[in-house]
């Protein structure tokens, strides 16, 4: 009996590990595609792929922290866009040194996130509607300031950061991504605020009865989301070499797709940084592959949507399965 429950335990843990499934899929995809297209593993292609993964991972983390608390952030992209043009704008228009501009941009991201979080926490109005309003406001300010024209004055150091490689085919852009990923993993697993965010996400009632301050936790989560959106926005400036007002317009779908593929439960409390990473990898590989095989790039949209549905279905099946196993374990 003991052995039986032990295997069950291991099985549950295996199913519980959100990154394993997407990890295997990524590995198989990389091997499969490189067999058909050896160019897939060329150092140039790896560079391009990792650059894209780096930016998209930070974007996904920005959504992940809000998913963790059981909400959603539609304003993620518009915060990223606003930060991107503010960052380049102050450099171009006022000659602000890069580190100061960086701090300014990140500050805007945090402030924008916090403002939304404060209203959500204070009024208990659904995050959907508040961040929808935020999306419009930040986008409007962005376009109002830029008149929809890009800023070209990206300093060389930033450009170099966006196109240079730190080691072989690995881009500098990887560095902030690794820092953010490890940081968020640490936050969710080892820091009070991260644990409180997940506790709030899985059982808000119990969390509140346990003495967690729900308002502060919600505001923290949105501030973090704003910060990550800001980092991603600035990374994109570096990657694109230009302060585009359209930065952030297309983040919405992929920011949800990657965490969901990575096993995140949208009702909150369950997120996986590792799973999200492989979610981002899968999306990047598919996008790359479509380009390499000369398939209409618009198909990406279709594939992304289908991936979300597929992941949602898998997550649900797995949830049912784990519950059943646990029921069996408790019954024994």
């Amino acid at each position: 009996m003991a052995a039986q429950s032990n295997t069950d335990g291991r099985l549950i843990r295996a199913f519980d590990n959100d990154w394993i499934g997407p990890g295997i899929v990524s590995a198989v995809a990389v091997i499969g595609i490189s067999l058909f297209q050896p160019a897939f593993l060329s150092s140039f292609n790896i560079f391009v792929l990792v650059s894209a993964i780096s930016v998209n991972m930070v974007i996904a983390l920005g959504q992940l922290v809000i998913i963790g608390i059981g909400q959603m952030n539609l304003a993620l992209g518009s915060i990223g866009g606003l930060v991107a043009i503010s960052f380049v704008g102050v450099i171009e228009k006022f000659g602000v040194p890069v580190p100061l501009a960086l701090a300014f941009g990140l500050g805007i991201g945090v402030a924008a996130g916090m403002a939304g979080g404060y209203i959500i926490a204070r009024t208990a109005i659904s995050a959907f509607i508040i961040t929808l309003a935020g999306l419009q406001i930040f986008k409007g300010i962005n376009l109002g300031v830029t008149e929809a024209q890009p800023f070209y004055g990206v300093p060389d150091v930033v450009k170099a950061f966006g196109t240079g490689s730190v080691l072989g085919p690995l881009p500098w852009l990887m560095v902030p991504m690794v820092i953010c990923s490890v940081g968020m993993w640490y936050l969710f697993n080892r820091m009070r605020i991260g644990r409180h965010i997940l506790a709030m996400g899985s059982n808000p009632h119990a969390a509140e009865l346990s003495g967690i301050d729900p308002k502060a936790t919600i505001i923290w989560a949105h501030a973090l989301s704003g910060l990550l959106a800001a980092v991603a926005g600035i990374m994109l400036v570096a990657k694109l070499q230009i302060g585009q007002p359209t930065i952030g317009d297309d983040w919405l779908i992929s920011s949800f797709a990657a965490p969901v593929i990575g096993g995140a439960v949208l009702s909150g409390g369950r997120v996986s940084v590792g799973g999200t990473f492989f979610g981002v990898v899968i999306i990047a590989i598919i996008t790359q592959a479509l380009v390499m095989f000369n398939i209409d790039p618009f198909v990406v949209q279709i594939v992304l949507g289908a991936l979300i549905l597929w992941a949602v279905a898998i997550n649900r099946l797995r949830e049912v399965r784990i519950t059943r196993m646990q029921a069996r374990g408790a019954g024994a």
Partner: protein
Amino acid sequence: MTALQVSHVSKSFPGVKALNDVSMTMTAGSVHALLGENGAGKSTLIKIVTGIYQPDAGSVMMNGSPIRFANPRQAAAGGLGVVHQERNLVTRFSVGENIMLDRLGAHALSKVNYAAIYREAELWLKLLDLEVDPRTPVSRLSVAQMQLVEIGKALSLKSRVLLLDEPTASLTPNESTVLFRILRRLRDDGVAIGFVSHKLEEVFDICDRVTVLRDGINACDSADLTTLNRGDVVQMMIGRAERITKRAPRPKPDATPYLEMRGYASGLGHRDITLSVRPGEIVGLYGLVGAGRSELARSILGLSKQLAGDVRVEGETVHITSVAGALHSHGIGYVSEDRKQEGLILLHSVLANGGITIWRKLANRLGFLRDRTVNAQVGPILRRLELKTPSIYQTIGNLSGGNQQKVSVAKWMAAGVKLLIIDEPTVGIDIKTKAYMHDLIHELAGHGTAVLLITSDMPEMVDVADRILVMDGYRIKGEVENDRNYDAVSKAIMGFIHGQQAA
């Protein structure tokens, strides 16, 4: 030493005086039972003590100083631990982390010192004789273990007053024994323990003092339990035995059963259920919380899978797969025990709630129907039930519990159901409406409706039902012919339930 003193507390909700001049004194080193039927005011009292409600009059003192907690969190910080009937744990987190959830770090960005947390949690687990690793996720514990974790959580906040709401409702007898051993030890350590339960054996087993509430007043205030016997306590809880009203003997229906189940098994865990309800008959389904009664009602309505057995309506084998099917094809209706979540649509009007079951039937060929058409059907029934409402367009959430309950029965009368399953019809409604509901059930049966009555209120069961099926552990344990002799019938019912527990 007085640990918690409730003095002359009153609390009114519009339409209902929930507590009237209620007092209770809990002393350190004692287990204090708080008893009363459903709706007697126990939960209101607990909510006042823990700061969810503020009393209209009276005071609550803890260790000699008056307290007024603004919310349950303050109560916990103030040394008053409450273990609610439902579990309040983050199941994906470990045992230790749940116990220490509000002490994970000094500030938001603190690193969680898991070693220290597990060390401290281990102390509390040891105190509770709970042999689980504090690193185990709560989701892998049994319900009883989860309960102990919650007690540990309360104790770890240095609670000297511990309130347990129905702690044994979902425990097996063995698990209860373990829990009691721990409670005794805590008592000996000087903790004041409040114990809410429906099971009198347990109360006599573990408690030394008792406060009984009945209809919002003290039937007794912190009496010494050793001077009382079971009969005294029951007497206080239900009032006089003559609450069993005199009713004309009802003719024994001998028609074909309207609903008949044989060897029925459901996806919810029911096994070997055999029962029948005849037109004009009131069949009671008695059992403790968690016995599977409401779940059986849901299974009959088609909300769970039928795994085995035979279900017949009017002698024909049927397979009911949805509530809509149960209503429209078989004339079966269900008055839910959870009036606010499942019985009514609080946001909508009296008329919309009363007519919801017959919209489909009343609509013309194009799907149109008018308020006048609906009211022509529902209005007379509401008038017959003497519903008190300013207008039929009043939002039903604004009516009193009793009036709400009338509407939730009226909608099935309007639909003309042949079998009505009534689940806990009188929870949270006043005495007068309660008596009225009982008369109404009889009247319905008198007109030929088959009634399946679910209630945990023993006097109600003895007052209303013709015969009583006893349910425990998702099985029917026995049947008692109701001769309305309260003592004999209740003893027979308890016999069936405890026969199971001894096994």
